[in-house]
């Protein structure tokens, strides 16, 4: 199923040169400017919209200049679209949290605070690109046109993933940390083999960066020069562990040692995330291989609804990040620049309400799966043992109906 899209979905076609695998040499790979940004010892953040809601110009910040060109085409309407995406995603997320509290879901992993990172990067994608998410990419799913209620099945416990990955080129959520970065890399190897100019994006977290699989994904993608963007949402926390437990220097710097560029972007700035992801995707399309994007953001909510962050983090920290809220800053800008009027916000509020209502209704109506579904889809070609157990279990269940 798809939802109506809004902003920034116009495909940005690549220059047209078909990728020749391995054509780009490692030495040439980093775009000069971006690499320079990424290599400074002091972590630099690409930012195009300040927390105060002001747009950054090339004059303000020469480092940002290159990336500004990647959002030149973004109209005010597009900005409203990005805003709408973030608001609706947040609303959906809040609704899911509420549904969990009401017992309709077993668990929920909130993306609160990470809307800009997800909408910015998600809106940078073309339809033929492919996404490998973690379990928290509800905003990216939204951008891909996955019906948000589809995401809830696994959290309700009626399935392990309720959508067909190939309908929206959005893979299933992956819970085991880091695994999907290798799937993305393999998929990207396939894209390159096919001579296609689409790209692949793999989402992962700051905690995930410690997993060996992620390093192996870096190695494979570097060696095969695969068209994949590694998009890390550094939300400062891996459950209760701050990033100091995972790394000693900023994560984006890790890419360089594997031979491809890494860059840190303000993950609460939807424009910057859009620009940087477009840049990275274009590198991939041009056959220049992988890029690591570190979106510096914050997990405003608990890790999941099972978590209690008061055990391990200070309120002041959360408060400080509230001031950097991704939605607020775009709203401020839209208001100040006249890009949106009250009617827009009111209409959006109504749309949010409607979305919330629909989500509630759909979830409450979600039927439990049939018991015999246990035996379905274990194998594509069948398996004698599954057949035997299915038959035995059916007979066992039938024995109750017969009144035994």
């Amino acid at each position: 199923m798809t939802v109506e899209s809004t902003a920034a979905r116009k495909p940005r076609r690549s220059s047209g040169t078909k990728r020749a695998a391995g054509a780009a040499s490692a030495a040439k790979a980093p775009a000069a400017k971006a690499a320079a940004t990424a290599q400074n010892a002091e972590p630099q953040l690409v930012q195009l919209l300040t927390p105060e809601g002001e747009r950054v110009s090339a004059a303000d910040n020469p480092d940002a200049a290159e990336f500004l060109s990647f959002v030149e085409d973004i109209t005010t309407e597009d900005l409203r679209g990005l805003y709408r995406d973030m608001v609706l995603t947040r609303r959906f997320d809040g609704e899911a949290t509420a549904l969990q509290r009401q017992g309709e879901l077993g668990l929920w992993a909130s993306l609160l605070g990470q809307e800009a990172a997800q909408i910015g990067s998600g809106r940078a994608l073309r339809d033929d690109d492919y996404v490998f998410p973690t379990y928290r990419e509800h905003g990216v799913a939204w951008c891909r046109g996955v019906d948000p209620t589809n995401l809830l099945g696994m959290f309700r416990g009626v399935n392990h993933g309720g959508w067909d990955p190939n309908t929206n080129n959005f893979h299933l959520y992956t819970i085991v940390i880091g695994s999907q970065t290798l799937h993305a890399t393999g998929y990207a190897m396939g894209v390159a083999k096919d001579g296609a100019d689409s790209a692949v994006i793999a989402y992962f977290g700051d905690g995930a960066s410690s997993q060996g699989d992620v390093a192996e994904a870096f190695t494979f993608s570097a060696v095969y020069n695969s068209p994949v963007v590694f998009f890390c949402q550094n939300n400062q926390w891996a459950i209760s562990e701050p990033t100091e437990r995972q790394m000693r220097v900023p994560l984006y710097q890790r890419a360089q040692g594997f031979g491809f560029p890494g860059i840190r972007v303000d993950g609460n700035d939807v424009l910057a995330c859009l620009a940087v992801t477009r840049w990275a995707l274009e590198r991939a399309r041009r056959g220049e291989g992988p890029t690591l994007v570190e979106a510096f953001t914050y997990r405003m909510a608990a890790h999941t609804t099972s978590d209690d962050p008061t055990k391990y983090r200070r309120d002041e920290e959360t408060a400080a990040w509230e001031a950097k809220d991704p939605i607020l800053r775009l709203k401020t800008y839209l208001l100040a620049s006249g890009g949106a009027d009250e009617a827009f916000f009111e209409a959006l509020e109504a749309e949010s309400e409607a979305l919330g209502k629909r989500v509630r209704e759909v979830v409450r109506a979600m039927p439990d799966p049939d018991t015999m579904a246990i035996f379905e889809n274990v194998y594509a070609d069948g398996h004698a043992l599954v057949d035997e157990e299915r038959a035995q279990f059916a007979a066992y269940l039938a024995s109750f109906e017969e009144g035994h």
Partner: protein
Amino acid sequence: MAVEKMSIAKALNESLRKALETDPKVLIMGEDVGKLGGVFRITDGLQKDFGEERVIDTPLAESGIVGTAIGLALRGYRPVVEIQFDGFVFPAYDQIVTQLAKMHARALGKVKMPVVVRIPYAGGIGAVEHHSESPEALFAHVPGLKVVSPSNPSDAYWMLQQAILSDDPVIFFEPKRRYWDKGEVDTDAIPDSLHTARVAREGSDITLAAYGPMVKVCLEAAAAAAEEGKSVEVVDLRSMSPIDFDGLQVSVEKTRRLVVVHEAPVFLGTGAEIAARITERCFYHLEAPVLRVGGFHAPYPPARLEDEYLPGLDRVLDAVDRSLAY
């Protein structure tokens, strides 16, 4: 303390605390074991009292956790490692089966591997994928490892003590859905040996063998069967490597019938080994083939199906009936 009523979770916490107090070489390692006290709060308060040098929040990398624990053991430490959930042990599987299990033999006995790997396991808590698995057979098949699972607070306390004292690597499976079950723990008692089976309920018609979370189900089944006049003996195996076949044999020679119950898929689960070996040992005693009740040959299903997937009272009683019908 001495005798106190507490949950399995609390008993494990007390046991870890005792170990940290007793032996300065004992370390706790894992994801979120520090301030948070683990996602199940088993290590609650331990970092506060013993410091970050002894209760160590690790990077999010299970192979790294077990691999560095091996190195720490080589240096003379006794790491107690927590794997956050059953389904997340596999990134560490290589280090466990290739290094941890074999190091003592490789070194002709010259180094020891006193590492405990604690794994909250099995289902029944309504969780998402990978949070409800029972991979014990995948460890019990591997020479060099010991594999145990307590079913009650007293065993939780004492078996963990014994696992930490053991000079061999012990994979310690904690029945997560029983964490909040309470029972008496006597911290002065002299416990059974770590690998001895225990008759949890005496009976004469048939034996049910289980461990960890399924002991409770078997006890309930035995109680239900008693109402129908069937005398069911329940053996809590406690250890899956080694398995106390001597103890189990005594029970089966008495009852002449055996049903093994576990959550893991039946195919190549521990029940397979128990059936094979008990049949060999008790060939002329058995009135019925050893029957097995367990998970199906399918990935652990979504939570809304787990009640059907998991062995429950009815499925156990069905097997009891089938056995008795021979």
